């Protein structure tokens, strides 16, 4: 697993008090924990599927053919599906890194217990984010299989949607966990959910951004989900361009920044 490769590299630059190089133990813990609540895991797979069936099939006749990235003509479900996949990668990662992490941080006192062992805060941050990522990846893989089965994949490049979805999940999980270290109560978490819904609705999930006036397009283009949707939609039709690297860079910055901030915050909260 790539986590171990990353672990070797990080060990050389980060002091051992922060990082013991055993973040995968937290993933092992999560696999045990979710054996008891597997239903919660499965539900995340069906959410985008319901959207796809309800909106894709429902609006298909009304909308007809739409123009995808690079001018590719697409059926409406094929236009919609990558956006739903990007959103579900986001939702899965954010839910795990906010609600679940908050519970473990404040009520379960899990991280307090872990930091009394020989693990460090970066092990915790990296392990929890890796788990959120794996969970998001499972959903993405399942949804991609459904897309392929329904004939909604439009080019061989669609295979690259899976790793791209993992990058999206990684960015959101890292930032989500960093935000969670500032959260004071469950009310604050409601604000997070409240911010996600409009982002899902207005980031071009259901239509292209060209329906907006220019200034609004600019605002939406600053939002992370829009980059995820644009990335997956382009990969689906095989419209490969250097601009895709810009989308990836956006998520790389989220991942590195979120991870660093989480580590510092956990240290400040639990090791003082």
């Amino acid at each position, binding site marked *: 697993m790539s986590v171990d490769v990353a672990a070797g590299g990080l060990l050389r630059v980060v002091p*051992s*008090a922060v990082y*013991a190089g*055993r973040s995968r*133990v937290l993933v*092992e*813990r999560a696999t*045990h*924990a979710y054996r*008891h*609540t597997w239903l919660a895991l499965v539900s995340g797979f069906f959410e985008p599927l319901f959207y796809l069936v309800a909106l894709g099939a429902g609006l298909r006749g009304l909308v007809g053919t739409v123009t995808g990235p690079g001018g590719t003509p697409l059926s409406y479900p094929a236009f919609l599906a990558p956006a739903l996949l990007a959103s579900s990668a986001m939702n899965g990662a954010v839910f795990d890194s906010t609600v679940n992490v908050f519970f*473990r941080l404040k*009520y*379960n*006192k*899990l991280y*307090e*217990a*872990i*930091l*009394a*062992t*020989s*693990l*460090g805060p970066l092990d915790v941050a990296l392990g929890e984010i890796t788990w959120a990522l794996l969970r998001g990846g499972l959903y993405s893989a399942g949804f991609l299989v459904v897309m392929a089965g329904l004939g909604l994949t439009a080019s061989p490049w669609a295979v690259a949607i899976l790793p791209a979805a993992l990058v999206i999940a990684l960015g959101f999980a890292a930032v989500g966990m960093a935000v969670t270290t500032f959260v004071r109560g469950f009310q604050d978490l409601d604000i997070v959910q409240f911010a996600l819904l409009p982002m899902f609705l207005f980031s071009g999930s259901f239509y292209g951004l060209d329906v907006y006036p220019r200034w609004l397009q600019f605002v939406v283009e600053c939002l992370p989900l829009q980059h995820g949707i644009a990335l997956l939609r382009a990969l689906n039709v095989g419209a490969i361009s250097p601009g895709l690297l810009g989308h990836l860079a956006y998520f790389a910055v989220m991942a590195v920044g979120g991870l660093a901030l989480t580590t510092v915050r956990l240290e400040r909260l*639990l*090791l*003082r």
Partner: protein
Amino acid sequence: MVAPEQEPAAAAPVLIAARGLTKRFGDLVAVAGIDFEVRRGEAFGFLGPNGAGKSSTMRMIGCVAPATSGELRILGLDPQRYGPRIRARLGVVPQQDTLDLELTVRENLYIYGRYFGLPREGLRAKVDELLRFAQLSDRANAKVEPLSGGMKRRLTIARSLVNDPEILLLDEPTTGLDPQARHVLWDRLYRLKQSGVTLVLTTHYMDEAEQLCDRLVVMDGGRIVAEGAPAALIAEHSTREVAELRFEPGGSAGAVERLAGVLSGAGERVEVLPDRVLLYVEDGEGAVVSALDAGLRPLSTLVRRSTLEDVFLRLTGRSLVD
């Protein structure tokens, strides 16, 4: 867990050494420059009222809180530089249980061992052994939440032993437990001590300190105000016996004057509470007779040996500090 020969405490190597150890949170001084040493195989206690600095000291020993100043060596190592290496050899029982509510009893032990990097194979047998030690084998596959307070505490102690620690840190191990559960825990801790584990504990139960500790320090306001073996502390800071004379509330007024002639030996003293008069004396029965001769008419009398509680109240006062 095989019991090695107990070394005499004075000859055993020093595992924890603190000099001028200080912890500040902003303007608040939690620990104000304390010195102490803990030797291998000892059971060492920190006693003190709430806010005395016990837990802050324990967190510094546990390498989860940096000292503001002063010197601390644990197992010969500096916690600032070698925190994870030291923690790998410590067992920690925090004041509040931090059990993993998302896992079963067995998984709590198993995963905790994995946090220390213990290999899976050996760990399974270890977990079974710890389940027996904690008397939780029949609850192995239950979730943690429905367990009783005593069971959770036993599980926390079992969990702290998963890495075969050389030093076990227990922060108020039996607070909130019923007498049965406390005695079971004391029994388990006593066994650990017999097997050579060094125990460092905080408590504000004097009977617990007398039962478990070879040596202890009394802390108050971030400082160490007394140090020694329980019996030595009693000998030094209290008298052999205490005579308690109980009155109606307010009925003890004027007792001091009347008792002036009762006290004879060195260190003997009288303490007047609203409903009680305590006579700290060598001969309790004799003091009661003298008090009655002096004209006191208590509702009831009780003569008992001095306890650590007398020492504690003498040193840290009776007023409530929250």
